[in-house]
């Protein structure tokens, strides 16, 4: 696979299962899947979000994204409670491919264990992990 179009913003934290977290203050974060994840999956045609209020745990699945050919669990990079889901993805799941770090965000979370950030990768570490894979 060519990574020519790949991009991994420096202001995000990354989970090795190809998920990202954008911290908003000390207690909140936005989650999504990385460029690599959406590229591996192909055109996303369906996003099955969690319920607002649901509790999610680091390293466990909290949602599913499906392309025509494949389905994938989405893994939580940190633990918390869902405070908002990206409803616009119901009608336009392709935003996950087109803008995985922007309009393709998946959920907003109130973090229950903010210190988990320490276990996540920086952009450079994540890029290196992909190169090795």
């Amino acid at each position, binding site marked *: 696979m060519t990574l020519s179009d790949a991009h991994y913003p420096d202001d995000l934290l990354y989970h090795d299962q190809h998920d990202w977290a954008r911290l908003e203050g000390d207690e909140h974060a936005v989650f999504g899947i990385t460029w690599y994840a959406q590229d591996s999956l192909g055109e996303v045609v369906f996003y099955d979000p969690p319920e607002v209020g649901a509790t999610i745990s680091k390293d466990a699945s909290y949602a599913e994204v499906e392309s*025509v*050919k494949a389905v*994938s*669990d989405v893994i939580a990079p940190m633990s918390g409670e869902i405070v908002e889901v990206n409803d616009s993805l119901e009608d336009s799941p392709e935003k996950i491919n087109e803008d995985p770090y922007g309009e393709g965000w998946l959920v907003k979370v109130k973090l229950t264990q903010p210190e988990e950030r320490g276990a996540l990768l920086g952009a450079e570490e994540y890029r290196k992990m992909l190169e090795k894979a």
Partner: protein
Amino acid sequence: MAQLFNTLPRVAEQALRRTPLYERHADLGAKLVPFAGWEMPVTYEGIREEHTAVRTHAGMFDVSHMGEVEVEGPGALAFLQRVLSNDVAKLEIGGAQYSCLCNEAGGVLDDLFTYRLGGDRYLIVTNSANHDADLAWLGRLSRGFDVAVRDVADRYAMLAVQGPHARAILTRALGLALPTRMRVATARVGNRPALVCGTGYTGEDGVELLIDPEVAPAIWVELLDAGVVPCGLGARDTLRLEVCFHLHGNDLTPERNPIEAGLGWCCADATGFIGADAVARARREGTDEKLAPFKIEGAGIPREGNPVLSDGERVGTVASGTFSPSLEVGIGMAYLRAALAEPGTAVEIDVRGKHRPARIASKPLYQRKG
């Protein structure tokens, strides 16, 4: 994100074979995946675009992984009547015919097209995953018949060119006289002998070309330049499932007979083919389960292996499932209790724990325009 669960069959830990068009696929930036021991393009620009190109214009698929077996000799007809489910005596020179290859119990070992190339010369196209087993089966059963069974898979590259504009483009670009549907013609492609078959796996008009592997890359480029859209196995699967064509390994298996699969029409029980007794019994007595197409009503994409439920009780299993780019909804085919396999029946599909309402539909799920 966890690992991707590809629904394409995978063959692990084994050297993958490449078709003569491998370099062309790589040049186009195709996503290549293992498929039945081959490294095959699953998509180039996106499954939906490729799917739509075939439904509205013209697309081409490298299906060189499929196998070819030549059957020739004075005993060819008698031999093929014995092994193929259809009435091969009805196959005229230059004709094509669909059949099942059954075991004694009527189980489907493979489904295949047979082309009659001459008086006692036939060509059978096999599914790549079954090619070696088919060849061994045919070879063993040919003893006692005055016939030669030859593996000629290396002699051909196979290109399926499909879509409402496929014939016009092929005629213009390659100067070919094309056979009508369910016919085969000899031709010269790239100045080498070739076969042009009026068959396909998409529900659209089009042909399948069996050409010399050496000229395949040049022909591919010529068709690309003529505007034919390269399509991968991903679109091939969504296209075939929309029109309810069977995929061996999913919808057909050695544990299922053609009657429960809805393929009784290609079984001529009176010819006495291997498995005919079992097929005739299934036809007469009915089967516990039947394969039926369905559409999800609302969200959710069914996948192979998902349970089918009725009133909360398990009544079947999804054999093939995908997202339909034409209908923009989840579709599939499932084996379920025969009494429920009627169009209009409401069921639920258990898609990874979520019960998705679905309705049994009639074939095909997608009706060709015009």
